[in-house]
């Protein structure tokens, strides 16, 4: 029987069960005596076992079966729940999660058997009552990592052994002929790097600034999907030499090692001699990566690579409340009825009725729009619910007592935002645990509660959703940041002294600032915050920081409700139309041209005693036929850029309109001043201005 049609259902349900198992285990840890929770865990494990069995996933079945045995013994009071036992159960959960992920990626459960987990389960059973202590368990896990480690170092630079195909080799040859350099660059990321794909994105941007990437191993798509270990290799042709690359790449945070090797000219036919020599000596390593046929159990990583090359078998889905679908269905029904009504109405004979119907049509389309947007909305709970477990693990690692208090889980965000927001939040939460909260001892000395507290709050505010991560730790040490900046040569001492608290905090988000962990020991904060910021800004959001010395700090993430539709102001610049996002508009003024002052070549206006720089859009956008130069009165749209105001001079204002944002496409990405395009009522295209990039 073909099971593939049930695969999607299996994945969705397993994810749900794994999630509820997670919550139950956390509950069990808090209250080991709670029989209801135990029964729930038993039920969930049993369901997963049944489902996995039906799908023929024998390893999953085996694992859940052994879990069941242990749970059964607990239920019969043969075994007592201890923290060591809960740890083992958590390990089972992780294993199950990995199985499910493997099913999502490849359609199969993979080859790992988690023997150590199963062994500890059986050990618990055999010893009855005398559960292996956490120390033993730790030792066991240490053993397993010790086994895993050499394999990893063996394969450490496996991506460096990639081979170029004919076409890529000819591109390299051509570049060499033109006197350019061809370099093979292997970049190894720090093992603690959390947002690997975002970090890789920054690295790629840097690489592309100085040269052209010919090949990357693993392929870019996999790197974007975070399907790589901690290293990747690219072949770059560039006019610049390896020194420059080495300098630029090493200045990026969380990069452990950069290995640059110049490539030589090789005849286009056949593999490069360098590679062919290698392919003999290191055939084992490369074949493990390249051919999915190599099925050595130890080459776990390689298998994942091979699996990821196959197209993803599952699709991204959204679970939709049936009520919402009904609303959608009703609206579409109305739409059809109205269309029929319009067809039957003669505009010359019954103009009144015709216009009424048109108005009705407009109402329906507005509602329809809302309803479709709602379908795409997902509660942040789906992201939040993995955090309690994570905080528990971190707290154990750090030896701190941490309470995570979450609220506003029901707040909804667009699916696209939800998918991306998880990693930055993990980063911020880790940051709070690690650096924000003091050690238990220190807290006792300070007279604070020994339990550190982290609040994770989400709420809607106008057209935005705010997510706050706050802790009651020591707060950010501004002086230490400044000191560090001076040491790194980013600031002079004078500039540092003149700097406000807010400006100093901004330093934390600078990519070059948070290099290496040096900062961790010093002031805490700063490791990888640039990545968080980059990610949030990609989503059209902002990050703000508040800190209170001795009382804690708060990170505020402001995200747009949806990325697809927003209100905008349409303006004329010359004969062209542009859209400015309404959210960033502060006010619109008409200003006498003679009242525009000039300060060091920059045009400014004095707005209620505030000096506001102005930009003539016609100049920045190179509009040929604007007449703002000769106008006596200027229309100025004042926009907010973070905390600052800027005036944009336009020819005239058309009005407010709801616009659907469209990308300008791959060929026209990264054009300064533009955030995208939209289609106007007349079918023509208007460009959307990116307020943040206008100077």
């Amino acid at each position, binding site marked *: 029987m073909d099971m593939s049609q049930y695969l999607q259902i299996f994945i969705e349900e397993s994810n749900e069960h794994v999630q509820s198992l997670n919550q139950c285990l956390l509950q069990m840890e808090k209250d080991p005596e709670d029989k209801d929770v135990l029964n729930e865990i038993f039920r969930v494990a049993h369901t997963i076992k049944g489902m996995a069995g039906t799908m023929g996933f024998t390893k999953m079945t085996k694992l859940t079966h052994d879990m069941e045995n242990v749970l059964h013994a607990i239920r019969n009071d043969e075994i007592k729940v201890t923290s060591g036992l809960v740890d083992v159960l958590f390990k089972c959960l992780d294993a199950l999660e990995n199985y499910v992920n493997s099913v999502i990626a490849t359609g199969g459960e993979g080859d790992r058997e988690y023997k150590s987990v199963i062994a500890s389960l059986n050990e618990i059973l055999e010893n009855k009552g005398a559960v292996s202590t956490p120390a033993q368990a730790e030792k066991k896990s240490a053993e397993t990592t010790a086994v895993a480690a050499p394999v990893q170092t063996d394969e450490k630079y496996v991506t460096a052994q990639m081979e170029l195909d004919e*076409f890529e080799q*000819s591109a390299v040859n051509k570049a060499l002929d033109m006197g350019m350099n061809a370099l093979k660059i292997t970049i190894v990321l720090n093992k603690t790097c959390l947002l690997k794909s975002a970090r890789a994105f920054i690295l790629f941007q840097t690489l592309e600034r100085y040269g052209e990437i010919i090949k990357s191993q693993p392929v870019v798509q996999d790197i974007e999907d975070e399907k790589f270990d901690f290293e990747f290799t690219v072949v770059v042709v560039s006019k610049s030499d390896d020194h420059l690359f080495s300098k630029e790449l090493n200045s990026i945070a969380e990069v452990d090692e950069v290995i640059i090797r110049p490539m030589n000219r090789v005849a286009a036919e056949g593999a490069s001699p360098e590679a062919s020599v290698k392919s003999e000596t290191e055939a084992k390593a490369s074949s493990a990566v390249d051919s999915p046929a190599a099925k050595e159990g130890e080459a776990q990583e390689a298998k994942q690579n091979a699996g990821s090359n196959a197209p993803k078998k599952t699709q991204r889905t959204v679970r939709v409340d049936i009520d919402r679908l009904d609303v959608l269905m009703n609206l579409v029904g109305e739409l059809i009825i109205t269309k029929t009504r319009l067809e039957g109405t003669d505009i010359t004979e019954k103009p009144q009725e015709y216009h009424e119907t048109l108005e009705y049509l407009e109402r329906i389309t507005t509602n329809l729009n809302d309803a479709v947007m709602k379908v795409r909305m997902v509660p942040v709970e789906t992201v939040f619910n993995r955090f309690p477990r994570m905080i528990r693990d971190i707290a154990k690692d750090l030896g701190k007592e941490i309470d995570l208090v979450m609220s506003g889980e029901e707040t909804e965000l667009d699916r696209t935002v939800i998918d991306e927001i998880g990693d930055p939040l993990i980063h911020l939460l880790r940051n709070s645990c690690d650096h924000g909260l003091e050690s238990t001892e220190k807290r006792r000395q300070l007279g604070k509660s020994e339990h550190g507290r982290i609040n994770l709050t989400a709420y809607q505010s106008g057209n935005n959703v705010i997510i706050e991560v706050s802790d009651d730790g020591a707060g950010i040490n501004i002086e230490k940041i400044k000191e560090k900046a001076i040491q790194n040569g980013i600031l002079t001492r004078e500039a540092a002294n003149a700097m406000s608290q807010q400006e100093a905090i901004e330093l934390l988000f600078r990519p070059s600032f948070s290099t290496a962990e040096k900062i961790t020991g010093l002031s805490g904060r700063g490791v990888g915050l640039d990545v968080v910021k980059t990610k949030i800004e990609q989503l059209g959001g902002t990050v703000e920081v508040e800190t209170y010395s001795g009382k804690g700090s708060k990170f505020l993430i402001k995200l747009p409700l949806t990325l697809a539709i927003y209100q905008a102001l349409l303006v004329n610049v010359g004969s*062209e139309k542009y859209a400015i996002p309404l959210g960033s508009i502060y006010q619109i003024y008409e200003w006498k041209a003679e009242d525009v002052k000039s300060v060091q070549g920059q045009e400014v206006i004095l707005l209620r005693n505030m000096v506001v720089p102005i930009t003539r859009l016609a100049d*920045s*956008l*190179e*509009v040929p036929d604007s007449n703002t130069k000769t106008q006596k009165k200027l229309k100025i749209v004042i926009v907010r850029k973070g905390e600052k105001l800027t005036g944009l001079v336009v020819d005239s204002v058309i009005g407010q309109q709801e616009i659907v944002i*469209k*990308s*300008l*496409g*791959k*060929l*026209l990405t990264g*054009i*300064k*001043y*533009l955030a995208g*395009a939209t*289609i106007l009522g007349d*079918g*023509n*295209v*208007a*460009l959307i201005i990116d307020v943040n990039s206008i100077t």
Partner: protein
Amino acid sequence: MADVQVNDFDTKQFIVFSLGDERFGIDSLKITTIDRMKTITRVPKTPSYIKGVINLRGDIIPVMDLRDRFNLPAVEETEETRIIILKLEEVSIGVIVDQVQQTIQLSGEDIENTTSLINSAAAEYIFGIGKVGGEIVTLINFEKLVKL
């Protein structure tokens, strides 16, 4: 890459269009649609041969002026001016041409790999010359032209 593979296929259909007196060919499989001239929205900070973007049934598509790209003198648009929408790998792009003329079938032996003969700005982007009944059609490698 294309240089090597030019003669590898049996027959392919090409759409022939003109720029002034010269005739060019595009592999018809790469063409999504051919449209009349429509309003083009200029996009600032782009090379001069990118005329801007158009709305093609809800998608935003960049449009390239082929005359400008080949350094040919600009002409007034006429009734015959067309935008050919191409889909190259994952990217769509429109190109403005003077006139779309006909479709032709070319087999491998009808195509001559004579890049060296041509001496114009377009030379780099040509992968061969097609011969149809005494006339010649220049075949363009659009992937290279838009630098994918």
